[in-house]
């Protein structure tokens, strides 16, 4: 029986995602300086600081509302492309778990599928365009293959540990790509040889979830 993640743990995971994004502000900005408008770290920092400030207001709400609030906060505060993209991702994920007070592995897989659907709808990028989709699309494919095998007896922490590795490889795969979407696409060949900032920040999100699930607190 896959483990249940109670609300306290869900909130902890969201807080840790926020803290990790904030902690990597300079690194994300540096990546975005090379192939973007140099604000990915700054924008994401602004958004996730606002998320941390907003969370106490929704701690007693259902998990769906918590995720939707995170999404709306990001849309409202990030100020760049990541706002609509991450915002829609969190909102779509939240819609999958309206009314829930805890999450299991099946919920998590539905949420990440929905998050990617939101990102694809909003940004219209394809795999290979050198974006966050290149990190998240392989993760969704991996999680769906795990689900197809049957979730009975699967350990959340182990599944996400593998998902993190899939995400890491997805992120690394953006390095040799030429950007087709976003500000980096204006650079054309000059975007080759650099990691995509959105692919890195979305890897950080998956990595944080994996790390938190391994912490039995």
């Amino acid at each position, binding site marked *: 029986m896959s483990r249940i993640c109670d609300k306290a743990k869900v909130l902890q995971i969201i807080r840790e995602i926020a803290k990790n994004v904030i902690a990597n502000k300079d690194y994300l900005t540096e990546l975005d300086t090379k192939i973007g408008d140099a604000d990915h770290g700054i924008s994401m920092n602004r958004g996730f600081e606002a998320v941390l400030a907003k969370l106490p207001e929704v701690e007693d709400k259902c998990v769906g509302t918590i995720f939707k609030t995170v999404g709306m906060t990001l849309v409202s505060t990030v100020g*760049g492309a990541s706002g*609509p993209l991450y915002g829609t991702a969190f909102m779509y994920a939240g819609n999958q778990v309206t009314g829930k007070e805890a999450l299991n592995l099946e919920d998590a897989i539905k949420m990440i599928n929905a998050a990617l659907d939101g990102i694809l709808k909003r940004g219209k990028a394809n795999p290979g365009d050198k974006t966050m989709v290149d990190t998240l699309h392989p993760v969704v494919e991996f999680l769906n293959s795990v689900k197809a095998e049957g979730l009975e007896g699967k350990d959340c922490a182990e599944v996400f540990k593998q998902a993190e590795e899939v995400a890491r490889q997805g992120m690394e795969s953006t390095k040799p790509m030429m950007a087709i979407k976003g500000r980096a696409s204006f650079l054309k060949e000059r975007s080759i040889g650099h990691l995509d900032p959105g692919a890195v920040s979305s890897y950080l999100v998956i990595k944080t979830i994996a790390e938190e699930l391994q912490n039995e607190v």
Partner: protein
Amino acid sequence: MVGIVIISHSSKVAEGACEIALQMAPEVAIAACGGNKEGGIGTDPDKITAGIENVFSEEGVIVLADLGSAVMSAELILDSLAPEMQGKVIIANAPVVEGAVVAAIEASIGNSLAEVLSAAEGVAGMRKVEREG
């Protein structure tokens, strides 16, 4: 009269495009929605939503946006518009400054949303500079 919303990553660009358009058509409702919440380079969906609401009428609204993320922010907002506004707010595939000017002129003579949209989107094909060879 069709209203106009100008979205730019720069508040100065949005305000400037608005000023130029108003010079041609002072009676048109135009909202300049540029810059992020701090007034820096970026976009602010809340400002855009307020802009759309401010210029909205039954004739509809044309939205002009500069770069990709401005278009994404606008699309996100369009998805969540009130039912009575759905379908009456359209993002033009047009350059911001010239698109705003053309849209304002078309709107000022009472043209429909479809006519204003078509005119604004026709701007992209107009040659600004004649060059030999």
